[in-house]
């Protein structure tokens, strides 16, 4: 017998490439959820990854940064908040790719 798959309709979930149970330091909502002002997660409510290692919903952080009192510091560690810009983009994708490979290998094992 030969088995051919004509069509495979799969289902997948997406996650931000972050540790599982991490929540936004500002709104305390999981990254996979939305910030309080947004309705739809993902593209509409992106994350900002800080160089200091802290990440937030973009909208949450923007609200904070725009305040005088913030002085442009990370609300968690009080370092200057700089997000991982485009120059590291390729690197980041590389990392995520590695991780995906790992997970698929896990599944196969």
């Amino acid at each position: 017998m030969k088995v051919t798959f004509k069509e495979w309709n799969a289902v997948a979930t997406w996650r931000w490439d972050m540790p599982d149970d991490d929540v936004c330091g500002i709104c305390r909502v999981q990254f996979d959820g939305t910030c309080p002002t947004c309705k739809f997660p993902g593209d509409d409510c992106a994350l900002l990854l800080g160089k200091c290692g802290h990440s937030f919903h973009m909208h949450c952080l923007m609200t904070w940064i725009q305040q005088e009192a913030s002085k442009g510091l990370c609300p968690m560690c009080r370092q200057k908040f700089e997000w991982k810009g485009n120059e590291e983009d390729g690197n980041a994708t590389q990392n995520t790719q590695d991780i995906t490979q790992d997970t698929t290998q896990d599944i196969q094992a």
Partner: protein
Amino acid sequence: MPPTSTITTSRKRVFNSVFSASPALGPFSTTDNPPLKSIDPLATSRSFDDSQLTEPDEPGPDQETWDRAWDAATAFLAVPDRGFAALGAFEDIDEDVFLKRWNRHERPSRKTADALRVLVSQEQRGSIIDWYGQEIRRHFLKNFRDGLFDLLCYPEKEGLLQRIVRCLELARRIYFTRLAEYILPLLDASEKERAFLKLHRTFHHMVAYSSALPWDRVSALLNREFTKEALTILGIDALKEEAARGDVSIDEDMEVDREFSVSYRRWREEPSVDARMEMMTENEDAEVVAARDRLLSLLNGLQLVGLGGDKAQKVFAGVMNSMMIEFVLAAYPGQWEGPSLVSQHLRHWVENVFARLVVQVLAIINVPESGKSSEHLDVNLSDVEKWYETGFTCVGTLRMRELFDVMVEWPASSGAIDDLRRFTTNPATRLYFTLSFASVLCDRLLHPGASTVEILQLYISIIRALNLLDPKGVLLDRVARPIRRYLRDRDDTVKVIVGGLLADPDAEGQPAPSTRETLAELSAELTKAHQNSLQNDGDELDWNDMNWMPDPVDAAPDFRKSKTADVIGSLISLFESKETFVKEMQNMLAERLLQKRTDYVQEMSVLELLKLRFGDNALQACEVMMRDIFDSRRVDGVIRNDQGLVQSTTPDEPTEEIPDLHAKILSHFFWPDIQEQAFKVPEEITALQQRYSTGFESLKPSRKLTWLNNLGQVTVELDLDDRVFVDEVTTWQAAVIYAFQSTTPDDKQPPVTKTLEQLTQELQMSPALVRSACLFWISKRILTEPQRDTYRVLETLPSGENEPGTTAEPNTTDDINDDTSAAASAAAAADAAAAAAAKESAEAAAMEKMNLYWQFIVGMLTNQGAMPLQQIVMMLKMVVPGGFPFSNEELREFLAGMVSKGKLEVSGGKYKIVP
């Protein structure tokens, strides 16, 4: 003065004539007067008193002549004592002989005639008539009283009343013949009238008040007779017959049988008003006419002998009252078609049949003693109106009793609601309505035997019906409370409601849109309700509403007409919080969205409509879910393009065929927890998934995909030796069948055989799931199970079931249909196995959750020492955020598992951590 003096003197004369020592007295005077005296002491004593009180007797014109005349006349008039037996024998002998027996036949001799003339012509002529009255009384009491009394002792005898009436008529005749023939002609007109009435009254009083005919018995008899005839005359017995005969043969039978009918149904079916009119008024059939004649002649007799009058009227009124109820009960049960014509029909009947009988009867028994005034009407219009009201109240009561069934039949029974609307017009009937209906509901609906769908179905009917009945919603509010309370306690209420909302509305073409499983009409209702709400956006605080009415008095204190009083609103507001509802909505939506379909129009519209009710925020998750599905479609296209997953459209290019991999990418945070049953998907697919993931990650930076391999659909094509099988199956079924693929394309190779264990190992799938998949394939006749838990590919169908010529058939489902029974049972087995697998995975998921609590338990037992189960549960319930969702039993099972793993030990009912 003169009249009293004549009376007293005449009394004295009577007294004297009776008690004088005159030897010429009749044979009866001396013997029979003592009993009379004792029976009627008042009369006698009065005459004594009178004689003593009045002045001495003024001498008559000729005392001698008078006395002689008196003797002759009394002898002539006296009635012989023949006893009751002689009266009772009237049936056997003819009238003349009968009268002869009673000494009523012979003409008076000259002497007697003269004597009568003398007595009557005298000034004191009243005396002879008085005497005759007493004679009648005496005779009646002596002869007839006991006989009549005895007759009444057998009240169940047929025609007893008629017999009694006949006896009394004869008695009356006996008493009155001579009076009418010989005395009355001697008097002038007014005297005649007076004398006759006097004796007449004497006779009536005797009949009525002597203990011969105790009224309670007579009234029972009357009641029976009236009822019997009235049933026929009013057409009630015909109605009952009709009902008893059953519905089928009515029409044909009735046409021939009886022209006259008060049947509501036939009345209804009659199209023209005139014909309806005629139906009750014309063409009375012989039976009715006969009954009417019988009744009227009986009444005539009764009236004549003094059993009519007020008392008979009372009995008659009682009978007619019960007739009204009988009629309503016979005519209207189950006649629920709308629009209801019951009120017209009833009015018609009351006016033409009921009132007619009443008029006829009252004309006989309602004769005032002092002549009949011609312009006095026995029945006037307000009476008829009152009867109609009474009748309609009966209809209301009947409908109340039927209400539950009316609700069950709902859209077809709107007529009954019309009737009830006329009935529930005052607080008393409304209270009766709510109380009785609520108790019926408790008895018949709100019990474990009724499925939630049935209850909801009926609740919907009730909502619709009562909204018609009482637009203010007060009745509904009261009736619905117990239902709502009960529904809240049912676990699957939400599920049914949500399922109904999401059900496909295109089921309308089918005969029963709402099956036992789903309430499909809810989805239709949702759309409809929305349109309605657009039309009348009525607000309670609309100050310009000139038609505003206060709530009825029976409204509950906390009653307020909510804007969501329609069906959907009522169902949704069943639950205190929207959360339960939304959560169920999410689950249901998830299930439907993950199906393979081209559009989700129904889901979209339901979601939009629900958003109007719940507000956007409550349904955010559902919206995200919808959007995920639409986004994935777009993203899917982009990724497949990027990664070169799209099949080349040029057919002649002999590239290696790769499966079309499509994916739905979900925002897991907004989807309900999806149970994962991990297993290894075929290599080919894994590779594709990997490429797909890469594509996704390049499209959406810093995000990654997790594949949920147990969800989704696969179209497989199985190339067997003798056939090709194409079908859409689940991913795990596909994975299992993939494992049976031949390693080499060599035809000589024996069919692939694998055991359950091998498959479990190979696919890393739970045995239950493997088994379920295998059973599925067996039902499709791809696999066989030669031994238990061993499966082999059925490369060629066994001969005899499939001709070799048809092997090239691309789809063998037709073959499978040939012996559907085997396939059906196999499919059933597959379904059962799938259910078992699902259950197992659910249990596994529950255990998984339980593992979270394990940390709590370990901590607790470490810190506080050994604990009994009860205490552990209590602590968990207090400590665990969000509550502890498991029952004692489940926890006990879990702990038992831990005990067997050696992590816990039990001593004396207490669990302890193994050190």
